[in-house]
C-alpha cells in the first residue's frame, strides 16, 4: 500500500493552487493552441537539417561508404561514435520512467513523458548509423535470422554485433510500448475536451477507446509496473551490449572488463543532460514551470554529478590499468594516444576530461544545481563531452594499429559524414517538435495522482498529521485500510 502522506521536508512536486481540472487545462492547453512563431522557426530548422541529412545519406547509398573519410585503420569513425552517443542519450528516458518507478520516486511524474519520448527519438537516430554503415543498406534485413535460400545461412549468434541488433530493436519496441500505453489515458483526456471534429477523430483513434474504468486502471497499473520491471534490466543490458561491441575485441583501449558499467553510467549521464536541455526549453515555452519545477532540475543535476563522477573514476581506472598491466600496447594507447596532450588526438581526450569530469563538479553546489542557466549550459557541455568520449574510445584506439605501415593519415570527417550527423539532429528535433505540439508533454493522469499528496496547496493539510505523536500517526497512516 502507498502512504497517503508525504513529509513536509520534501519539496512539493506541483506548485500553485491546482485542482484536477486546472492540471488538465495547464498541460493540454498548449496542444490546443496555435503553435507560436518560435515553434515554426524551430521546426523549420529541424526539417532543414533533416533534409540535408537525407541528402548526405542519399550520396552515401548511391556512391558508397567512400563518401566518408574512413580509412585503412579507422573503419569506425563518426558513424559509430554518433551511434553510441545517441543510444546513450536514449537511456535516460527508460531510467526515469522505469527505474525511478520501481524506486517509488514521485518526481519522475513531471518529466517521464518527455524523457521517454526523447528515448524513442534518440534510439531512432542511433539506429540509422549502423544500418547505413552497412553500405548496401538494401540488404539490411540480412541481420535478421530467418530461413532463407542461402543455405539457410544464419547470422552469428555469438557475435556482439548481432546481440546489438537484438538489444536495440528490443529496447526500441519495449520503450515504444511503455510510452504509448502511458499515453492512452492522456490521449483520452485530450479527446474528451477536443473542440473540432478532426481532433476528436484523431485523438479518438489514438486513445484506443480508453474510458478510465477502474478495472482498466488496475490492469494498466500492473502493466506499467511489470514493464518497468522488464525495462530496468533491459536498459542496463542495452548499453552493456553496446560496450561489448568494443570490449570483446582485442584492440588496446577497447579490450577492458570495465566497459559495461562505465558505458551504462556514461549513458545515464548524457541522457540526463539531454533531458535537461529539452525540458528547460519545454517548461519555459509551454509555461509548465509549476510541474517541471526547480526541484526536478536539482534532482536531475544530482544524478548528473553522480554519474559524471562514476565516469571519471572509470577514466582514471583505465589509465591506471594502462600502466599497471605493463602491456606496451595498452600503455601506448592510454598514455600516448589519449592522455598525451600533444599526440594527434590528445585534444579530444582532454576535451572529454574537462567536459565530463571536471565541469559537472560544479553541481556539488546547491545554488548551481538550482540555477536554470548554469544547468542549461552544463547540459550542453556534458553532451559535447560525451560525444568526445565515444570519439576518443573509437578513434584513438584505431588510428595506429599493430602495423606501423598502415598507420593512417589524420582522420577528419567528410562533409557527408557531418551531414549525416546533422541529419539525425534534424530527425530528433522534428520528432520532438511534433511531440511537443500534439502530445501531452507531461503525464496528466500521473500528475493528478500525486497532486493531493505532493501539491503545494495540499501540503499544509499534512501539518496536523505531522504534529501527531508517532503512535497515532502509525495507526492512521502506516497501514492499509
Amino acid at each position, binding site marked *: 500500500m502507498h502512504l497517503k502522506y508525504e513529509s513536509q521536508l520534501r519539496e512539493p512536486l506541483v506548485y500553485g493552487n491546482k485542482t*484536477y481540472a486546472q492540471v488538465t487545462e495547464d498541460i493540454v492547453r498548449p496542444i490546443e493552441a496555435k503553435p507560436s512563431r518560435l515553434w515554426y522557426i524551430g521546426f523549420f530548422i529541424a526539417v532543414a537539417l533533416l533534409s540535408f541529412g537525407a541528402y548526405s545519406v542519399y550520396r552515401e547509398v548511391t556512391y558508397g561508404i567512400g563518401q566518408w573519410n574512413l580509412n585503412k585503420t579507422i573503419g569506425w569513425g563518426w558513424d559509430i561514435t554518433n551511434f553510441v552517443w545517441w543510444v546513450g542519450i536514449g537511456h535516460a528516458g527508460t531510467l526515469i520512467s522505469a527505474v525511478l518507478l520501481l524506486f517509488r520516486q514521485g518526481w519522475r511524474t513531471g518529466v517521464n513523458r518527455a524523457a521517454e519520448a526523447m528515448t524513442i527519438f534518440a534510439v531512432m537516430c542511433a539506429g540509422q548509423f549502423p544500418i547505413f554503415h552497412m553500405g548496401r543498406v538494401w540488404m539490411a534485413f540480412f541481420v535478421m535470422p530467418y530461413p532463407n535460400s542461402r543455405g539457410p545461412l544464419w547470422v552469428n549468434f555469438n557475435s556482439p554485433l548481432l*546481440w546489438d541488433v537484438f538489444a536495440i530493436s528490443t529496447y526500441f519496441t519495449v520503450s515504444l510500448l511503455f510510452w504509448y500505453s502511458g499515453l492512452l489515458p492522456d490521449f483520452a483526456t485530450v479527446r474528451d475536451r477536443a473542440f473540432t471534429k478532426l481532433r476528436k477523430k484523431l485523438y479518438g483513434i489514438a486513445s484506443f477507446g480508453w474510458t478510465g474504468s477502474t478495472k482498466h486502471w488496475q490492469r494498466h497499473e500492473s502493466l506499467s509496473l511489470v514493464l518497468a520491471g522488464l525495462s530496468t534490466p533491459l536498459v542496463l543490458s542495452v548499453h552493456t551490449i553496446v560496450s561489448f561491441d568494443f570490449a570483446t575485441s582485442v584492440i588496446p583501449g577497447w579490450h577492458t572488463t570495465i566497459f559495461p558499467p562505465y558505458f551504462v553510467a556514461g549513458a545515464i549521464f548524457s541522457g540526463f543532460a539531454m533531458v535537461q536541455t529539452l525540458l528547460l526549453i519545454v517548461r519555459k515555452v509551454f509555461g509548465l514551470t509549476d510541474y517541471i519545477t526547480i526541484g526536478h532540475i536539482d534532482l536531475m543535476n544530482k544524478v548528473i554529478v553522480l554519474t559524471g563522477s562514476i565516469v571519471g573514476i572509470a577514466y582514471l581506472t583505465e589509465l591506471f590499468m594502462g600502466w599497471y598491466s605493463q602491456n606496451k600496447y595498452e600503455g601506448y594507447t592510454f598514455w600516448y594516444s589519449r592522455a598525451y596532450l600533444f599526440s594527434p588526438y590528445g585534444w579530444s581526450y582532454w576535451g572529454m576530461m574537462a567536459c565530463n569530469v571536471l565541469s559537472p563538479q560544479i553541481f556539488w553546489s546547491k545554488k548551481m544545481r538550482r540555477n536554470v542557466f548554469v544547468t542549461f549550459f552544463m547540459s550542453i557541455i556534458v553532451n559535447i563531452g560525451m560525444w568526445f568520449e565515444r570519439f576518443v574510445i573509437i578513434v584513438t584506439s584505431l588510428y595506429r594499429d599493430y602495423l606501423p605501415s598502415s598507420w593512417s593519415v589524420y582522420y577528419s570527417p567528410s562533409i557527408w559524414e557531418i551531414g549525416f550527423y546533422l541529419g539525425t539532429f534534424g530527425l530528433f528535433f522534428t520528432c520532438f517538435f511534433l511531440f511537443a505540439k500534439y502530445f501531452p508533454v507531461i503525464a496528466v493522469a500521473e500528475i493528478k495522482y500525486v497532486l493531493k499528496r505532493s501539491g503545494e496547496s495540499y501540503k499544509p493539510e499534512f501539518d496536523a498529521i505531522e504534529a501527531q505523536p508517532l503512535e497515532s500517526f502509525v495507526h492512521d497512516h502506516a497501514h492499509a*485500510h
Partner: protein
Amino acid sequence: MAQKKFVVGCFDDEKVLFPAVKQVRTAGYKIKDVYTPFPVHGLDHALGMRETSLHTAGFIYGITGTTTAISCISWIFTKDWPLNIGGKPHFALPAWIPIIFELTVLFAAVGMVMTFMWLCQMAPGVKKHHFHKRATDDLFVMVIECTEKTNAEDLKALLASNGAVETDIQVAEDGWWFGTYDNDDDNLYKQVAH
C-alpha cells in the same frame, strides 16, 4: 450489443467517492464501474474486484521467449548449420545469454501489452459509450446498471445524498463498437428525462 439503462453519479473528490461506494454497495446495488481520470488506489478493492492476473501472463510470455531463443539458437548452431569458430564449442550458451535475455523481455512486453488490449477491449478506432466527458478530466463517475427491480429515482437520491455532484439516467450501448468520436450525437447516447 444491447442497450441498457444506467444510473450515473458523478463525484468530484475521491474522499467522498470511497464512502459513497461503500454505501451504494451495502444498499445492495451492483456497481458496474467507476470511471476515474487517474488510478485511484484501493478503489478496485472497494469495488470488490479481484487482483489482475496480467503479470502472470507476462511471466508466461517471458519464459516462452526464453525457450524460443534457446531452442532456436541451439538448433541452428548445433544441428542446422554448425559453424566452426576457432574450434570453440558449438553449444556456446554463455555467448547466447544476451539474445536469450532480450527475447525474454521482448516476448513478455509485447505479449503483455497485447493481452492488456484484449482484456480491456481496446484498439485503434474502437469506441465506447462515455457516461460523462469529464471522467477523463476531474470527475469520478460511478455507473450502476439498472435491473427490472431497480428504482432509478431512489438510486439517484441515494447517490446525491452521498455527495454526488451530478446524477442522471442514461440508456446506452454496453459494449464497444468501431467508430470515431467526432459525432457524439448518434442514437447510441440518449439522455432520459431528469
